């Protein structure tokens, strides 16, 4: 499976066993996308930039 990067149009490889919430990076522009939903073969992605890496609290 593949998805198209909404930023640069690059092809993002999608593993067969992908699950909701996983992050995929565009190989061309490097932007991270979160798997927002998965319904019968249709994959919806959203940019994952806003997600903070918040640890240690």
């Amino acid at each position, binding site marked *: 499976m593949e998805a198209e990067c909404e930023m640069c149009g690059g092809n993002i490889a999608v593993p067969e066993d992908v*699950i909701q*919430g996983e*992050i995929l990076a565009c190989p061309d522009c490097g932007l991270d996308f979160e798997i927002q939903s998965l319904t019968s073969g249709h994959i919806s992605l959203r940019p994952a930039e806003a997600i903070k890496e918040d640890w240690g609290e």
Partner: protein
Amino acid sequence: MVTVIKAGGSILQKGAGTELMKKIISMGSGNSILVHGGGPTVTSLCENLGISPKFITSPNGIRSRYTDYETMQAFIMAMRGKINTEIVVELQKLGIRSVGISGIDGPTLIAERKGKLLTINERGRKMVVDGGYTGRIIRVDPALIFAITESGRTPVVSPIALSTEYEPLNVDGDRAAAAIAGAVQADELFLLTNVDGVILDGGTVDQIRQDEIPGFMKRVGSGMDKKLMAAEEALKGGCRKVIIANGNTGSPEPGSTDHEMGTVITA
């Protein structure tokens, strides 16, 4: 003289409890505020209830406990029900009139639920998960704490906050103590731990100035860096002095100017 003391949840088991209690007694009822941690009681209650601990791994490999709804329910029962009550009973036994509260009461601690967390899943792939019932304190209302201290009693605070959406949230005990120490403009905050203070190159650091904290944070291990972050927050909030010391070995005298043990951090 107002002193805030943060001690682990096992203070009563270790005998250090007695040392700590003596310190609180020496300050007199109504001059100290105790914030307690969780410790093994939470884990063992979860086990007894058949709730298996959940962990998540950060992209740089740090594994940490994840608080889902079920775990939060057990956390409240263990922390607010059992540990807090045991400490209050122990203090009353020593003649220290005390009152157990959590940050939900008042409300005293208002927190923001953490947003999504970036983790690495079992397949080694990056993944976002819901932040769970863990929060970051955004506001402290010290009115209830003052009502209790003014009545000559010692508040014993469980690190549970009320979210802006009115959910109970697990908050870090050191950061909760720091936020309270700032809000009440405490003279000193004791962060008791199981080492003798900030250790660097095998020796205990006696004094740290607030502006040196960022430099130290990179050089100490995880756990101590969190305490330094809490110390910085307390000083920024208006607490005058933070002492990181060993809670198991006694000695740092509240209010004394010369701290022979532990690391003293001042603005």
